[in-house]
């Protein structure tokens, strides 16, 4: 069983102890009911934030639901930390990690969950990618597009695994651009031979005017480095030089696995813990954990 599976199982186990994950009947929560549930939230019960967040997260992928679920997990985390409830805090962190929008964010939150609650195990994959895995195929396909071998690359690019593998490391827009380039190549003039017959000198050849003897899309330094970054990431290649890391966009700040970092990271004010009059406000002192 992989670490990730163990982590999920732990989260699930925790959730099975929740009094209710969804509203009665397990359907979507009505706006009125949601308002009631939100109004009932109090920092004295961090578990309530987590329960509601889980329910919203399980219901679907509507952006508003997900944003609210994320806020509830953050508040569950901060109020649980204040109450020194490590189980709730760890669970909230783990839930946040499963909603992460990037691999880095997911690893950061999962590491924090382990920091908070040492019963949560590592979610790192236990095996390294094998030679014939989709990530390697995706990396090779990108190189082929760059080399103008669009026809061969398309076999990989059109597979669902390709897009899935690439999405971890880049945007849909970039993937679409790559697909466009794959369709444009090989060179329509020389078919990647680099040379074409010279009409002015019978029997002689000249460089292909379309690809200038170099089939494949023309790239600026930045575009080429972005290709290489994604290829390297797919193959788990790490550059040693700082310049290369910088060029590959690996200069993101290192965040401490510190729960106090989470609320600022998601731009959520942790003091606004109560839902009153359809907005988040600071709770009256009586509700705050002493």
């Amino acid at each position: 069983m992989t670490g990730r599976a163990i982590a999920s199982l732990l989260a699930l186990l925790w959730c099975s102890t929740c009094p209710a994950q969804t509203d009665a009947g397990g359907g979507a929560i009505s706006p009125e009911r949601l308002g009631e549930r939100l109004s009932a939230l109090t920092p004295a019960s961090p578990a309530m934030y987590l329960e509601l967040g889980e329910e919203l997260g399980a219901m679907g992928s509507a952006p508003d639901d997900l944003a609210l679920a994320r806020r509830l997990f953050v508040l569950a985390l901060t109020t649980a930390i204040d109450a020194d409830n490590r189980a709730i805090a760890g669970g909230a962190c783990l839930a946040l990690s499963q909603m992460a929008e990037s691999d880095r964010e997911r690893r950061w939150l999962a590491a924090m969950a382990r920091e908070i609650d040492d019963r949560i195990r590592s979610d790192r994959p236990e095996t390294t990618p094998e030679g014939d895995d989709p990530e390697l195929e995706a990396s090779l396909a990108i190189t082929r597009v760059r080399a103008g071998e669009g026809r061969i690359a398309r076999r990989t690019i059109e597979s669902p695994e390709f897009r899935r593998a690439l999405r971890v490391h880049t945007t849909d827009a970039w993937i679409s651009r790559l697909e466009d380039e794959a369709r444009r190549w090989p060179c329509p003039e020389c078919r990647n031979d680099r040379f074409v017959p010279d009409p002015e000198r019978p029997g002689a050849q000249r460089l292909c005017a379309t690809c200038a003897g170099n089939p494949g899309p023309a790239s600026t330094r930045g575009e080429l480095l972005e290709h290489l970054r994604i290829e390297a990431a797919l193959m788990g290649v790490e550059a040693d030089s700082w310049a290369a890391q910088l060029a590959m966009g690996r200069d993101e700040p290192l965040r401490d696995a510190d729960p106090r970092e989470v609320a600022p990271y998601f731009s959520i004010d942790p003091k606004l813990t109560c839902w009153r009059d359809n907005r988040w406000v600071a709770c009256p002192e009586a509700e705050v954990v002493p």
Partner: protein
Amino acid sequence: MSAAPGNSDRASLTSMFLGQDAARGGPFALLGLRPGELTDAQILGARDQRMREIDAHRLAETPEADEVRLSLYAATAQLLNPAIRRQLSESWGAPGDRAPAPEARPGLSPGSPEQLLEHDAILALAMFGGWNQRSLRHIASIAHARGLSSQDVARTLRRIGRQRRPRRVVGQTPIQRRTGTSPASPVAGAPRPATPVSLLEPLPEQIDPAQRLIKMALLVAGVAVVTLVVLFAGVYAVVSADRQRAEADRAAMADDTDTPRSENPGAQRLRPVAPSQATPRTLPAPEFLGDPALVTHELESARRGLELAPYESTRRFARVVGLLAESWVTYRPDELEAANSGVEVYLASIGSHDVARLALDAVGAGAVGLDDPARAIDPEDVGAAIWSAGMLAELRRNPVLDATRRQQIDRLRRGVAPGGRRDADFASGAVLGAYVIGERMVSAGADLSAWRRWVEAVDALGRGDESLRTDMLSSMLDALLAGEEPREGRAEVVRELSLAMSWRRHEGARRWLVLALNRESASRAMLAGLIENLVRESAAQGLDATMTLDPNATMRERHALAQRMAETWRLGRDDRAASAVQDLAEIAGSAERDRARPGDAISSFGAAVRLAYANAGASLARQERFEDAARALESAAAYRTQRSNRQAADPLGGVDDGRWALAYQAASDSPDARLSALDRLGKRMNDRLGPADAETLTMVALRGAPRQVRDRAQSVAARFIASPAMVNALLEQADDLPASAPVVQLVELATGRPLDRSSNDGSWRLDARRDLLRALTEILAREGEGGAIDLMASEIESAYALTLGQSESEDAPRAEGQLPEAARLIALRYLREARSLGGAPPGLGLSPGEIERKRRSRLALADSSMQRFLAEQISVCESLALLASAERGGVAGEVGSILETHTRELRSATSVLDQITATELAIARLWLVREGAGP
């Protein structure tokens, strides 16, 4: 053949080298002695003094100088014979000035065969110019004639050695020790040559002619006796010299070729021989021959013999080097330099590799086996090991040393200079050796006599450099004091070392004691004993009976006593340390202003480099390495960001791209034309190919036919392999690379990494692809704006290496990725120091365990070498925070505030580079607090 100089010539030569008084006539005048009661030691001392005068003369290297030296040996030989001395004394001395009968040696009955042999041995050694085969054979033959065994010879020679060997006497100064005098015997071994020999000695015109005749007759008789002996020995030596030399050289050769070679054959030859095993060939050399003039002379003689009998000469060299290694601590610096340069000249004069190996083994003999922790430290080995360490270092820096000798030296140095610098001279090599051997002695529990030899070596190395001496002694004391339970015999060693420190003249010792008191790891019981000794012996001014330490004192009581001592001794801040702190404050202030200014990531990161150097300066100043600190601070102030200017518009572009590819395409029908096209490309001046040319060339190099064309293409491809387009072309082909050795080599050349092709499953192509991806990214990145970052990372690495105490010229590994490790070591050092001070005061909310836990958590998240460095760098910051709070009471608030600001800055940073700068700035702020100059 030159004629022997006549008497008048000799007198004029003597006058030239030793002054007119010496040329007045007679052995006493020649040696600068007054006729009368003289001991052998005085005679030999006088001879040595004269030798030194000749050596100092501008014509010291001429045959004339050798002539005068010979006269001195002859005169010494005459005077060492009591009978001749008595007669000569009567001849040259004042009336009534009579030499007494020779004193008997303790333990020997006058006139016994042993005593006679001792005198004859001294005579022979003096006559034959020192310890050599001739004198040895002569002594052995006399002994044999008198029915004495070779053991008797060995005993006699050891007795002579003991009699002459300078012994350390309590109360002696180093110079007194060196010259063999003591406060109780103000008569030096040799009278000063400028002093008149004797006021009682008659002037030549005052001497009665008849008396002069009698004296002359007696003198002639005396000289005749000596001459006979010399002639006998000379004839004996001449007749047998060639035969024996040939035999000896053959034997030496046989030793070196027929028998299995040990790790260090020279060392075996130099091991002391037990009396029962002693033979004339392997006898321990008389120690009095370890005196500087004679050693230098012997080295030169050995060098002269190199051409004629190299093995014999090397044996002689090995013996002299053994003596030098044993006795160098008693030499003056100029004498040691002369002897060491004699060793270098000898080694430089060797023509044969085998002989050079043997000679070098002899030089390194003292160092052999010291890397074996099981080896016991013999007191006699200590000085020799340190000399070997110094001499090997000196030899190692010779730029024209061949590889075999370099490897041999490195092997020999293993035990005394692990990881030592390659540009170290004798002094620094010997200092490092002394540290290493001292540490071995601490761990091996060496006895007091070994430590005394170590202190003698430290005295010799620290002559004129009290700081160095104090550093060496205090380092060993730190090691000896570590641990609460005093080990047997350790207290005596601590006493010896602590009393050897300069408590009165140099404040380094006082500073050390104050620090040791504050260090929890220093044994209370041993510190208490050490302070008691200082008080009892009034060694350190200002310490009185109220300033002793209870063996059960708490750390608080120790801090209080340290504080009292610091006040008593007025241990204020050194000016240089204060200046370093001021520089740090200015650099930190300027870095803060730079960070606040808008600018790109690379410009802002320059502040991190300046701060890293400034922090290294603070650390070095704290260690009182002020010169290094000043250099680091200078680097900080002078640092300017260097931007890359190699950026080309087209990342893969080259000159006239495609033109060559087209020419090759046109020649594709004829192999000769293809070869010629490849040759034309190979001769191109510009080494950057564009993608069309690079991809064409790569295709030919991988799959071209016939083979001759492919081989040529591979060779041309290697020429252009630094072009990004070439690396890209290989990357495009990586999943289908032919499995041939030249292709693998081409990839290795492009990536700078070896490829493992041991598996047959083609997985090496995946590795090749990874390496090519990495290489192309790095080339393009370095050519771009970010190229400056690598230079900056290298500067930060240098600054961290300085903090760790490595010099910039050192051979410390500088591979990328070493920086996190350097930071880790610095953090561990601070944590160790903080622990020794009792850890952080309550209220800081930081403990070593907490720092380590956070470090692990950060490292788990770090996914680049920049982030790994940051994770370790933050640990440096936190460990320094702990140390500053533990060291200075009452700064926990300031430290806590710096850490809070740092945390805020880390959170708001937009890149890891910002975070690195913020952390370096926090380290600088903590240094200022630690030095009492905080915000």
